[in-house]
């Protein structure tokens, strides 16, 4: 019984949250990695793209909720998601027309795109705050939990609870589906292969009859889908606040780099590495150990390696060590 309690504690406070957070990061990192792989630059506007997509979805969700539409146990936002994706797609394509296309025609160096994306980031940031404001917005409805801590305790009679949220479940499932789809698309379909070819050698792609503008279009559309989905899922799970989406950028980039920039599988792995290292290294194991250890051995300290103050620093330190032994990231980077 005590062993079960220990296990449940670990699951509840470490494994489930880390998995869900990892999946969230992974979805974001997937978008970053795709742009890096195909359009060749790090898009600093990605966090704000996610915010924009989530914002549109929220507005539509409110409308739907107002009209009494619902998905039963699932959040209504899922119904609004396609609209969000479409709007974000339009925004991204518009941005591409207004900003990036010019540099593509000029064959600008990648660093120019990066700095341009900073400019785009500022602007999107402004737009989102303009439309929906700066406050926290909540739009989750339906069942919040697949299983809540209280229900679990009642069901099992264990001392410890185990909570698993609907949003966490959806995030994990969606992340798996997204990466599988993306992988299949890039490696098996004609369009996907042509995108990889374009990413590899633009001019030669022209000589093979590949239309670059189409590749760019597809890329932005996929990115829009990924970013909106990531943004909405994050918002469902936590809450929507423009500022946080900007802050997400750092862990997302860390995930993408650790996994190997440009590699979709790497992005997924990277997300989990970051999430797990953030959560495990600073976890206080007292509660877990107190179930396992005999009465007289009860720990009086927290059994915490480092205080949570350092969780971000620690996860970075771990990355540095990982990279020392695997300098190209976990998966070899840049091979979309």
């Amino acid at each position, binding site marked *: 019984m005590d062993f079960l309690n220990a296990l449940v504690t670990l699951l509840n406070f470490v494994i489930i949250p880390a998995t869900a957070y990892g999946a969230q990061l992974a979805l974001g990192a997937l978008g970053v990695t795709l742009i890096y792989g195909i359009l060749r630059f790090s898009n600093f506007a990605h966090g704000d793209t996610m915010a924009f997509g989530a914002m549109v979805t929220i507005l539509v969700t409110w409308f739907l909720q107002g009209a009494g539409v619902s998905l039963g146990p699932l959040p209504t936002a899922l119904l609004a998601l396609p609209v969000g994706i479409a709007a974000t797609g339009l925004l991204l394509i518009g941005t591409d027309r207004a900003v990036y296309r010019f540099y593509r025609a000029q064959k600008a160096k990648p660093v120019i795109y990066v700095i341009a994306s900073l400019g785009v980031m500022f602007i999107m940031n402004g737009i989102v705050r303009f439309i929906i404001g700066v406050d926290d917005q909540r739009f989750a409805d339906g069942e919040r939990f697949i299983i809540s801590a209280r229900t679990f305790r009642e069901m099992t009679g264990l001392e410890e609870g185990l909570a698993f949220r609907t949003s966490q479940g959806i995030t994990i499932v969606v992340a798996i589906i997204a990466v599988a789809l993306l992988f299949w698309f890039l490696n098996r379909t004609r369009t996907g292969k042509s995108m990889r070819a374009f990413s590899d050698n633009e001019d030669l792609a022209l000589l093979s009859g590949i239309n670059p503008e189409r590749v760019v279009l597809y890329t932005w559309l996929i990115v829009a889908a990924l970013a909106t989905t990531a943004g909405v899922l994050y918002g469902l799970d936590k809450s929507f606040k423009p500022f946080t989406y900007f802050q997400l950028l750092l862990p997302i980039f*860390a995930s993408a780099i650790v996994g190997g920039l440009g590699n979709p599988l790497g992005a997924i792995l990277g997300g989990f590495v970051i999430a797990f290292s953030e959560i495990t290294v600073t976890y206080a194991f007292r509660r877990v150990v107190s179930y396992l250890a005999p009465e007289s051995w009860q720990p009086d300290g927290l059994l915490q390696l480092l205080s949570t103050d350092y969780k971000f*620093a620690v996860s970075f330190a771990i990355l*540095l060590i990982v*990279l020392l032994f695997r300098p190209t990231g976990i998966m070899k980077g840049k091979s979309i």
Partner: protein
Amino acid sequence: MQPKHVLLFVLVGALFIGTGFVQSWNTALTIFNMGLVSAIMALGVNMQWGYAGLFNVGVMGFVALGGLAAVLVSMPPVEGAWAAGGVQVLLGLVLGAATIVGAILVWGRMRPGRMRGIVILIILVAGFFIFRAVFDAGVARVESVDPALTGYLGGLGLPVVLSWPVGGLLAAGAAWIIGKTALGLRSDYLAIATLGIAEIVIAVLKNEDWLARGVKNVTGLPRPVPFEVDLQANERFVELAQGIGADPVSASTIAVKLAYAGLFIVVLLALIWLSEKALNSPWGRMMRAIRDNEISASAMGKNVKARHLQIFILGSAVCGLAGAMMTTLDGQLVPGTYQPLRFTFLIWVMVIVGGSGNNWGAVLGGFLVWWLWIQVEPIGLMLMQGITAGMAEDSALRDHLLDSAAHMRLLTMGLILLLVLRFSPRGLIPER
């Protein structure tokens, strides 16, 4: 510099002078002083990126280390803190360092194998616990010395200007560690290593209260220039001010700012002189060659790794120096204000907009972008007022727009950035 570029400097100068006339000279000088510091930071980043193509996204960390130096050098030592636990804290740190050194020595001495792994692990684990035991106890004692006002070790009580080179040294030390491990590897690694180190530096600054009070902030740093209130109380100064027809309060605030500006200008000019001389020497030629083609440069006998390390350390030291200067100017160390957007990305924008690879470009970018960063706020508000001028007084849209005016800051910044980039893609003063 070509005439066109001199003209650009004149234009940016005009922005500041215009600020002086339209807003106030105090405002203009405040922005100008931070502009000087920004220009120095931009110089540092430009050394790394413009000369050598090294991508440092941890500028914030080096700047913060400079800030730490200002506290450690200039604050008076805290009475009793050293006696209470200061020595023990230092002892703890020495023990920690000894553990790592010991592990490295053993690693070198012993044959590879499982035995070595076990011994290293034992050393590290034992060392960690001894370190924590000694160190934590010391820290607790230091931090309990009057926590509301001090609760830290204090500094050396030396003149604050000394902290500028010390800030450079601290940053250089950190850069040496990162460079040693990161520069030989793929350059992604440098990006994440610098990103990580910056976060780690900030985390330490925030959480190690014994060092510089953590988030409780150190305020009231000694200044290299007189206090305004002292000037206002000084009869000779007041007479002097009235002699030129100024009121003593604004005369004193402006005088103090000018004094800072003087100090900073000396530093900036010295750095520009050094960088220009270096860039136009065989050393500069070698750096350009390395940046052009690393493989070929190393086949031509240049030690690429060592050179990268050198320039990385130098650039970081300059950022550290600027950080110490900034903290001196602020008169306080506030770890919470160190944000990547402000201290890493904004500096990058300065370098790229100014013109990477060109020292004058970086300096120009520093002044211009900083001026914008401050002034887009009122500009944005003005813009909003302009847009809403024609709307009905009570329209909800008008209210919403005016309330959102604060967000115009980022929007305007983005717009300006994109415009500069579009019409002057290699920066305002491109590399020759």
